[in-house]
């Protein structure tokens, strides 16, 4: 297990206060945040390149914040990889084992299996300059894993790659993780990267941990508006709880003059009368009702008339900008292509929409 407690960094241009994170053994943990949020400094502090003002770092049961990098057993794959250009692929891979004066024989089986999984066998005698982008990435990963570190640090592993290589490396990282279960802390600003690879995500925005959770926790149930905005989510409105509905036990919530009826499970915390919060309407959980079609009971709570303001073709789905009647809070609806084709939608058309219960999410 890796644990960071109370990490505090003061620089002229940057401040980090009391940062905590915990990474379980074998976890693929993402530290996800916008560029310039101080992720790199955290990473450098963990490696030991930067001495933080305060804070403790545990690797397994060992406190390492006072140790030099070479004694921490943390491997590091920087974004530019930094393969040693004057060493062959083989020498690069064995660098860590040799640097630690460990007997090669005890690692050979493990290293061989890594070489096989990463398909590096034919490249062993080459110099890094002769490798393609994807090959370099594979070698850098192998070099980092070879000495069996307690923690593998990855800095934006998929950023800046061509789409085809990106997919290859992403699959490789999955395979690697599944086969060897290294404990990984991956720093990234790309939530797609985190979604594809992470089994735990810490969202870190403006020097503050906003949310820690599984992939679904973060992407489906963002805890706060900054998280939602960082993830690029739309349809976030300021809402206010008006009252609890007597028979249904649902909450009546107003956004401007529009009123929604939202189920209890749409919120992690308690909703109380008069409480204000950020309300997220999931665009893919809003339906456009076809003319003359009966409306299911489960959809009856939130039905609105309005008209279509705009339609954007996103390739895999369409985004419809819906403007409720007499209201100034237009919201986005995401419609899969097959459904879109049956609906005969156009800009200016008057439509009726229904919000499923799953459409609502209350944030702190």
């Amino acid at each position, binding site marked *: 297990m890796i644990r960071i407690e109370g990490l505090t960094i003061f620089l002229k241009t940057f401040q980090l206060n009391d940062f905590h994170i915990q990474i379980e053994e074998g976890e693929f943990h993402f530290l996800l945040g916008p560029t310039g949020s101080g992720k790199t400094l955290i990473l450098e502090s963990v*490696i*030991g*390149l930067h001495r933080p003002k305060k804070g403790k770092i545990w690797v397994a049961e060992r406190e390492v914040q006072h140790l*030099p*990098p*070479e004694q*921490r057993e*943390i*491997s*590091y*794959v*920087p974004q*530019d990889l*930094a393969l*040693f*250009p*004057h060493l062959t692929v083989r020498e690069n891979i064995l*660098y*860590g084992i040799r*640097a*630690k004066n460990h007997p090669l024989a005890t690692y050979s089986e493990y290293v061989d299996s890594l070489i096989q999984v990463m398909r590096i066998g034919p490249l062993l005698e080459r*110099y*890094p*300059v002769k490798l393609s982008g994807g090959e370099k990435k594979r070698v850098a990963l192998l*070099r*980092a894993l070879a*000495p069996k570190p307690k923690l593998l*640090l990855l800095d934006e592993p998929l950023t800046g790659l061509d789409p085809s290589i990106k997919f290859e490396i992403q699959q490789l990282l999955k395979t690697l993780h599944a086969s060897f279960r290294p404990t990984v802390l991956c720093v990234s600003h790309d939530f797609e990267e985190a979604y594809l690879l992470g089994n735990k995500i810490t969202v870190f925005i403006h020097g503050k941990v906003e949310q820690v959770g599984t992939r679904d926790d973060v992407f489906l149930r963002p805890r706060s508006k900054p998280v939602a905005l960082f993830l690029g989510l739309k349809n976030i409105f300021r809402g206010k709880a008006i009252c609890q509905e007597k028979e249904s036990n649902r909450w009546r919530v107003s956004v401007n003059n529009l009123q929604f009826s939202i189920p209890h499970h749409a919120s992690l915390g308690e909703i109380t009368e008069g409480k204000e919060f950020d309300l997220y309407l999931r665009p893919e959980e809003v339906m456009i009702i076809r003319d003359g079609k009966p409306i299911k009971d489960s959809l009856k709570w939130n039905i609105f008339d309005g008209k279509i303001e705009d339609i954007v073709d996103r390739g895999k789905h369409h985004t419809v900008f819906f403007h409720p009647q007499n209201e100034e809070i237009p919201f986005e609806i995401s419609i899969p292509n097959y459904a879109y084709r049956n609906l005969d939608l156009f800009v200016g058309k008057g439509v009726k929409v229904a919000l499923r219960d799953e459409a609502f999410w209350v944030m702190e």
Partner: protein
Amino acid sequence: MGFRYTMIGAALCIFIFYFGLLASLFFSVSPKGFWEALVHPSTLFSIRLSLIAASLATFLAIVIGLPSAYALSRYEFTGKQIIDTFLEIPMIMSPIALGASFLVFFNTPLGEAIQTRGIFFVFEFPGIILAQFATIAGLATRLMKASLDEISPRYEAVARSLGSSSWQAFYRITFPLSFRGLLASVILSWAKAVGEFGATVTLAGAMPGKTETMPIAIFTALASARIEKTIVLILILITLGLIALYGVRLTGRMIRYD
């Protein structure tokens, strides 16, 4: 095309200017006189003295310059800017002023103590080394810093995370990667030390058979109108310089990793 020819013409003029200057050296020398001057013990002494002194001065410049260059290239610390500026002192200061400063220094109580209890510098062999060292240490540090700057510190970061100490990371990674640049810096510094005149003559004097390096020997030979010896020494200096420049070129042909 007029523009192109004008530019190339200017380049040719520079070449003719220097080439003419060198060619003129052969005008006033006979093969016999040349040979006699070359094998004359005083000439051979100057050559030997110059090579030894310049090599020692360069060695000292590396010993102190390489770690300094590393510090200036890799770390942030108080006074870094001031140190960086002081490296240029020997470049902006006239060599004779540098030598004179040493003479003044060895007249201070500290300087006198060093001379009486340690090594004699004034008008002695160590004075040559000191003068040459003073002239090239700043330059050597600057040049070596530039070659270290070219190597991303990330290599060392990775090497350290893989288990190397900072020393190991330096000699296994940064040193081999910057070797080409470091070697070129050393060669250039050495060539500058060989040709050093002003500071050396001021601090170590121009004593034949003792402190007479090649540039100083040129000066004394010329002063006593021994033209053939002058020319021989000039040609040797030029040859050494050309070898050094060729050496620097060769480093450029060494394996490039990027």
